[in-house]
C-alpha cells in the first residue's frame, strides 16, 4: 500500500481530499478478502458515513485509513498527519480521571504540560464534560465515557476524523444527543469525517454523503448526497424528505445484501 506520507505540496493544496482511496482491496493473510475495488474520497468539510451489514468490511476501511492496517491492493492516500480515531468503545484508561485521559494523546506526543492541560480543558468544555474532570471512568455512564473519548481525539486538532461505530452501544436518547453534539463540533472544527455505523438514520442525520457497503467481499454499492444544510435542525428527522431518504438508503442496503 502507499499510505503516502503527506508531501508538503499535498498539505499546501487545500483542494486535495484528505482521504483518497483508489481501487483499494484488502486480503488478509488467511485468504479472507475483506474489501475489493473501493473508491472513496473524504474532503475537508465533508462528513461521509459508511453503512453496511456486520462483517462487510466497514471497519477494515477505517483501519486502512488510520494506518492500523495496510491495503493489499490499490492506493490509500491520506493527506494529513492529524488523524483522530474514535473506537467502538471509549477505551479510556480506568486508572486515569477524565482530565488525564483527555491529555493522554498529547502526552504520547511529548507535549509539555503547559500546552496539553489547557488543550484538554478546551476539549472537555467542547464535549460538555466541564465539571467532571476528576471523575474516573467507572463513575461515568456510557455516554459520558464516549464524550471523554471524543474530547481525547479533539486534542489532536484532527483534520481527518475517523469514527468506528462510536455510538453503537448507547441507548437511543443518548445517541441522538451525541449526534447533535458531534454535528456542532463538526460545524465548528470543519474536519473531514469518516463515520462507520449500521444505523441508516444516524448516517443520514450526520452526513453530507452516505455510502452503502455490501459484504463478501466488501464493496461500495451506492452513494447518496445528503441535501440538508449544516448546522442541522434536529427536526429534519421527522420530515417526509428525510423519511424518503431513509427508505432509499435502506433499499440500497437490502439489495446489496441479498
Amino acid at each position, binding site marked *: 500500500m502507499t499510505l503516502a506520507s503527506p508531501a508538503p505540496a499535498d498539505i499546501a493544496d487545500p483542494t486535495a481530499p484528505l482521504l483518497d482511496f483508489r481501487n483499494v482491496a484488502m486480503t488478509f493473510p488467511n485468504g479472507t478478502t475483506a474489501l475489493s475495488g473501493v473508491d472513496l474520497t473524504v474532503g475537508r468539510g465533508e462528513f461521509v458515513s459508511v453503512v453496511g451489514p456486520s462483517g462487510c468490511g466497514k471497519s477494515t476501511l477505517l483501519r486502512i485509513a*488510520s494506518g492500523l492496517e495496510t491495503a493489499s491492493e490499490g492506493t490509500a492516500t491520506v493527506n494529513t498527519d492529524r488523524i483522530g480515531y474514535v*473506537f467502538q468503545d471509549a477505551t479510556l*484508561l480506568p486508572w486515569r480521571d477524565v482530565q488525564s485521559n483527555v491529555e*493522554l494523546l498529547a502526552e*504520547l506526543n511529548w507535549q509539555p504540560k503547559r500546552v496539553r492541560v489547557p488543550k484538554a480543558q478546551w476539549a472537555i468544555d467542547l464535549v460538555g464534560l466541564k465539571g467532571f474532570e476528576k471523575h*474516573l471512568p467507572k*463513575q461515568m*455512564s456510557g455516554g459520558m465515557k464516549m464524550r471523554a473519548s471524543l474530547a481525547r481525539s479533539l486534542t489532536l486538532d484532527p483534520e481527518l476524523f475517523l469514527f468506528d461505530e462510536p455510538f453503537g452501544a448507547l441507548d437511543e436518547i443518548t445517541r441522538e444527543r451525541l449526534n447533535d453534539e458531534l454535528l456542532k463540533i463538526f460545524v465548528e472544527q470543519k474536519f473531514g469525517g469518516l463515520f462507520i455505523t449500521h444505523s441508516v438514520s444516524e448516517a443520514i442525520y450526520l452526513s453530507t454523503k452516505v455510502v452503502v457497503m455490501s459484504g463478501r467481499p466488501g464493496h461500495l454499492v451506492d452513494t447518496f448526497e445528503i441535501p440538508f444544510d449544516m448546522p442541522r435542525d434536529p427536526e429534519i428527522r421527522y420530515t417526509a424528505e428525510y423519511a424518503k431518504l431513509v427508505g432509499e438508503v435502506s433499499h440500497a442496503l437490502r439489495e446489496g445484501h441479498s
Partner: protein
Amino acid sequence: MSTTSAEPVATLSPEPTASTPPPTPPKQRTPARRRGFGSRAASILPPLGVLVVLLGAWYGVSIALAASGKGFLMPMPHEMFTQGFFDPQVGSDIWIALFRTTGVALTGLAIAMVIGIGWAIAMSLARWVERSTYAYAVMLQCIPILALVPLVGFWFGYEFLARVIVCVLIALFPMVSNTLFGLQSVDKSQRELFRLQKADKWTVLTKLTLPAALPSIFVGMRTSAGLSVIGAIVGDYFFRRGEPGIGSLISNYQSRLQSAELFAAILAACLLGVAIFAFFGWLSKVAVGRWYDSTR
C-alpha cells in the same frame, strides 16, 4: 453548551457510582454509616458463631481425652496460652522464631516478586522469551517442592540463604503467571490507541500495560505471600538446623509430645500467614481500589 451539559448530570444522578459514592451532603451519610455498621456486624457474627461452636467441640474432645488419660493428644484451647504464649520460655521462643520466619518469608517474597515481575515483563515484551522460558516456569510449579528441599539444603547450607531459596522456589510461579496474565489482558483497542500515536514499547509498558496489570500483580503478591510463609516454615521444618524458626519449633514440640506448645506454634504460624495475606489485600486496595472493582 447549556443544553449539552445537562446530559451528563442527568445520566450521572440515576446511577450513583458503584463503589466510590460521589460527595454527598453529611445528612445523607449517617444512615449509610449505620448500614455500614450493620453489614460489618453481619459479616463478623457468623464466623464468630462458628468459632464458638468449634471451641465448644474442642473442649468436649479434650475433656473426654483427658478423662481417659490421653490429654496430651488434644490440649485444652486455653492451654495454648497458659503453657504456650504466656509461658516465659516457650512464649519468647515462639516470638523469636516467628520473627526469624517472617524475615525469611518476606525476603523470599521480595526476591520472588522482583524475579517474577521482571520475568513476566520480559516475556510480554519479547515473544521469544515467553516461548523459550514459560514452560520452565510451569515446570517449577509442578516439581514437588518437598523433594527439592533436601537438595537446597545440600547445596546452600541450612541457614537463612537456603530457607529463602525454598521460599522463592515456592512463591515464584504465581508471581510470574499473574503478572503475565495482567500484562497480556490489555484491551486490543487500547493497544491500538497507543499504536496510532506511534508510542514506543517502553511508553506502552509504563503508561498502559503495567498499570493495567497492577490488579493481577497484586493477586499474585497475595498468593505468593501466603506460599512464601509456607516455604519459610517447610524449609526450616526439614532442615531443623541453624537458628530455629517456627518450623524447627513445630518439629521439636512434635517430637517431644508438647502438644499445647505445638498448637501455640501452629497458631502463631497461621496468624503470620493471615497477617501477611491481609497486608497485601490492604495494599492492593490502597493502590488500585480507587479505579479497580475487585471481586475480592
